[in-house]
């Protein structure tokens, strides 16, 4: 007997910031299980399959009782979570990057009601890029422009073969574009990285830079671009003649782009690495057309920055404690707050700080009540006091997500939420209602 299959086309993949919009998902009509994924990379494909019920997918709300997670009703779980938040003196709402924009908006609302701290995963990722853009601006573009026009593409501190697997084939390397009709052969790929990554291995030029010394290298490039002869023979492990050759290559291209990643934001100097990269791109526009795009990690962290900014004026690391939003990364960043043990309760939404925060901050996160809105068992949810099982945005509920270049795309629902799971948006709405009730509004 042939199983009946429902095929959903033009699906936006909810994994990385490339937000590929050409996936095709086959769902078994009877069992409502994902049975095939076409066009996705390995990681996106895995995400769809892992939405099927399994021993590590939460189906019902859970509350920790005597060290064990016990299944409870939604009402009971929401009530307990609201209690934790209302009784906290300085609660933190964190995450939001792996969910859709309406849920992110509810997160802002909840933070405001609680006078809480509000942060998203940009805090440990491209936050420094945002800080740099706030200081020196940015010459950005959409991925379509790159696909169609770019003949010189630099990946700086970014390894898309591993982190954004289809980026090269859809937008930045192998694809044929309107003005790049010969695809790969019409493009010059340059990779700057301390390691000869798999991306470097398929590039035209690989520049090996010393770890944590990108800033000095970019300063040298900019000074040579200004027409200066420098006093040094090598900068950051790169011989001065190679730097001069690179400068000529960049000046004489048709349309260049710098894609940059954690190599710049997570190394020493952080946002200043991005600051000087932005200034280099701006200064190259004296000679040719040059742009830059940050390689956003999560599929909707850009959306979280957008939504937070529309509502509060600020993109991340926000404090509502004095009744209005204030912004200061460092002072109000989740990791720093946890290191100083200044948070006494946390609501983690659509993210996994247990895995991704430095150990010392996770230690303090676990000292206080923890609520996790999460579909799967993770090193965060496994230790939460309340687990609110979420439906997966982009698979089991619709919404909007923002790609790394700021283009909004619609996420599709390919199947129903399993078990008793609810969308992040609905969970946050129920929390807001309960919190308001407890606060006497």
């Amino acid at each position, binding site marked *: 007997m042939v199983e009946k299959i429902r095929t959903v086309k033009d699906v936006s993949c909810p*994994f990385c910031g490339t937000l590929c919009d050409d996936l095709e998902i086959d769902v078994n009509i009877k069992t409502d299980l994902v049975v095939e994924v076409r066009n996705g990379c*390995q*990681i996106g494909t*895995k*995400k769809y399959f*892992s939405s099927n019920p*399994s021993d*590590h997918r939460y189906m019902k709300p859970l509350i920790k009782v005597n060290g064990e997670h016990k299944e409870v009703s939604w009402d009971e779980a929401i009530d307990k979570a609201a209690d934790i938040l209302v009784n906290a003196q300085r609660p933190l709402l964190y995450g939001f990057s792996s969910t859709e924009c309406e849920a992110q908006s509810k997160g802002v609302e909840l933070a405001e009601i609680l006078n809480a701290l509000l942060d998203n995963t940009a*805090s*440990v*990722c491209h*936050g*420094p890029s945002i*800080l740099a853009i706030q200081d020196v601006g940015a010459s950005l573009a959409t991925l379509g422009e790159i696909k169609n026009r770019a003949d010189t593409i630099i990946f700086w501190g970014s*390894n898309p*073969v*591993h*982190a954004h*697997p289809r980026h090269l084939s859809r937008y930045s390397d192998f694809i044929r574009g309107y003005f790049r009709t010969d695809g790969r052969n019409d493009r010059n790929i340059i990779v700057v990285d*301390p*390691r*000869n*990554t*798999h991306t*470097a*291995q398929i590039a035209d030029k690989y520049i090996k830079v010393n*770890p*944590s010394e990108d800033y000095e290298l970019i300063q040298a490039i900019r000074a040579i671009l200004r027409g200066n002869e420098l006093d040094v023979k090598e900068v950051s492990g790169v011989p001065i003649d190679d730097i001069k050759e690179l400068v000529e290559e960049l000046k004489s291209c048709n349309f260049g782009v710098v894609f940059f990643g*954690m*190599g710049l*934001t*997570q*190394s*020493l100097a*952080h*946002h200043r690495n991005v600051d000087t990269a932005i200034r280099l791109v701006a200064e190259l526009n004296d000679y040719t057309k040059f742009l830059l795009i940050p390689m956003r990690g999560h599929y909707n962290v850009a959306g979280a920055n957008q939504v937070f900014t529309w509502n509060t004026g600020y993109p991340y690391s926000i404090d509502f404690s004095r009744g209005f939003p204030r912004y200061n*990364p*460092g002072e109000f*960043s989740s*990791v*720093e707050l946890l*290191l100083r043990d200044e948070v006494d309760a946390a609501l983690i939404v659509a993210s*996994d700080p*247990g*895995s*991704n*925060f*430095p*150990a*010392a*901050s*996770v*230690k303090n996160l*676990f000292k206080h009540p923890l609520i996790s809105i999460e579909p*799967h*068992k*993770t*090193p965060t949810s*496994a*230790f939460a006091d309340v687990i609110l099982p979420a439906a997966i945005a982009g698979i089991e509920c619709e919404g909007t997500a923002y790609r790394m270049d700021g283009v909004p795309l619609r996420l599709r629902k390919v199947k129903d939420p399993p078990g008793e799971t609810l969308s992040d948006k609905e969970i946050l709405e129920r929390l807001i209602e309960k919190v308001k009730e407890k606060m006497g509004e």
Partner: protein
Amino acid sequence: MSLDNLILLTGRTISQGVALEGGKASRENVRAAGICTFDADDFKKLDCLVGTPVKVITDYGEVVVYSTITEEGPHQGIIFIPMGPWANQLVNPSSQGCGTPTYKGMKAKVEVVKSGKVIGAIELIGRLKEA
């Protein structure tokens, strides 16, 4: 055997990405993210078989992970651990005032451990709760 004066970098790999979507509590995740990748020449100095558990130590902590040889070298003097719970025992939590920890560029050293066990993600992070 041990190696000194190394620099630790962390970051994404496609296997680690597949494993994190497939289940963070799984053995697949340990094999994808509970590893340390060495430059081929550096690894010879450790004088052990590929896959031997090694203890990686930085100023911020230590952890036992499986050793492997890089496909993204040469990078003499650099070791690479995929992002995740094992790497985060070792990274610099300080952000120098900007909020984003310094996940890359820590000074590190590595020791081959006789009876080292690489533990799973949930157990590893669970130790932070009891502490």
